[in-house]
């Protein structure tokens, strides 16, 4: 059999079995490259306020903190909406307190979570649902971010902000385009178990796919380049 005939036969039979996978690869691949990754990551859902700390509002000193919490670590002085706050870790828990009054703010309640969500959220939509997650987080939020409030907004692509109950910080954000992206990626790497690309299914699909593509290119070579040389009037 000639190279052309072998390639034609192989291409035809390989694609009978791999056709669906090539459709999956090209559809999921196109989705992932066409949507801007920063948009997918919901960067446009949140506002980076850049509010400076108002020094005159600070009444609690570092010494005060250490006196009350001798084992405080990772101490940070930052801004919560417009008030200065201390955040730190003790052996038992994470603490946030108001740097003006010394009032302990953590864990934040639902009212505060809503206020923060509206502050960080870049649009003006209504909140549709609030839930405090303490264990068994959904796939889209890491366990280390718990406990966290999930605040869902009533808007296009159903955006959610996740706000840590101790720090009041937006730990992650999601919308339908990101959720879909995660599924697209898993289909793209043919992984139906743990989200890693080193699975045996992908191994065989990509080897056979490679043969499918090479034989296809041989056909293209004969059909386009060789045909042209012969000045054939064949259409395809």
């Amino acid at each position, binding site marked *: 059999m000639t190279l*052309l005939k072998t390639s*034609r036969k192989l291409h*035809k039979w390989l*694609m*009978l079995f791999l*056709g*669906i996978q*090539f*459709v999956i*690869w*090209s*559809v999921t*691949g*196109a989705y*992932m*490259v*066409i949507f*801007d*990754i920063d948009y997918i990551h919901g*960067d446009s859902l949140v506002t*980076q306020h*850049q*509010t*400076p*700390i108002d*020094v005159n509002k*600070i009444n609690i*000193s*570092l*010494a005060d903190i*250490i006196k009350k919490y001798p*084992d405080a*670590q*990772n*101490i*940070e*002085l*930052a*801004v919560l909406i417009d008030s200065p706050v201390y955040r730190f870790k003790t052996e038992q828990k994470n603490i946030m307190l108001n740097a003006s009054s010394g009032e302990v703010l953590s864990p934040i309640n639902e009212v505060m979570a809503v206020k923060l969500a509206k502050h960080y959220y870049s649009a003006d939509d209504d909140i549709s649902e609030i839930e405090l997650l303490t264990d068994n987080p959904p796939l889209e939020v890491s366990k280390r971010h718990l406990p966290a409030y999930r605040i869902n907004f009533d808007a296009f692509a159903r955006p959610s902000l996740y706000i840590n109950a101790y720090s009041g910080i937006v730990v992650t954000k999601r919308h339908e385009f990101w959720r879909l992206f995660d599924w697209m990626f898993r289909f793209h*790497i043919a992984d139906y178990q743990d989200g*890693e*690309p*080193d699975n045996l299914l*992908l*191994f065989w699909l*990509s080897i056979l796919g*490679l043969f499918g*593509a*090479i034989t*296809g*290119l041989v*056909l*293209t070579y004969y*059909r*386009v380049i060789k*045909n042209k040389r012969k000045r*054939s009037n*064949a*259409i*395809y």
Partner: protein
Amino acid sequence: MRFIKLIHKWTSLFVGIQLLLWLVSGFYFNIMDHDKVRGNQFREQIKPAPVLYSNINNTPFIDPKTILAEFEKSQSLKIVLVLDKPYYLLTHQAGLYHHFYNKQTLVNVYSGEEVIIDKKIASNIANQSYNGPGTIQSVTLQKPPIEDIPKEKNIVWQINFKDNVNTSVYINASSGQLIKHSDDDKRFADFFFMLHFMDYASEGSFNNWQIILFSIITLWLVLSGFIWTIELGFKGHYKFSFAMNKNKNLDIKNLPVSHATKK
């Protein structure tokens, strides 16, 4: 059907080579050593020691309020460790992520003076994070874009070690924080990522115009091929070899080749 076949032929000519590169690089991601390609072969995992809030002479930290009043307006002040010693890290302008542009100042907690990460400090930080056999070969200050870490938007120190994998250590030049290690194993994988993402301008992104164009054309290639395969199935071209010989002459006009018109 002729239209479908025409699309299949011409799109395959246009994206064929890239399609091979996608499959080869995709296959590489499947078989590569996932630990090696992180570039952390000689990276020492440093466990942070607890911060003591006064030094051996019992000098306490200067209070954050004083520091904040003296420097440019900050939105956060953090106690960080650099070479096991505490410092205040002031963030004047915060990026959404660490690798976005962040305007920061490092301040000595006892004297209240600004600390500049110089060549020597950068080398020491790099050495502390490195547990390989090599020694430092060069230390240079670099502005983004940086080839090894294309997403980084801050000025960094690059510390190159002389070892079998050419380890480079990257340190944020204003905060003194370790960004990452890179080495030849990682660079080898990065080459395949560049091919897979068609990131031929090394922007560290897969949202470039060339891949968007190629992905749309590939969609046409694949969908036309898919329809063609279904058509072949309906026309009875998928039969096992004993049946194929029999039908060969009968169905010649439906074969997916130009020879049908030629002969």
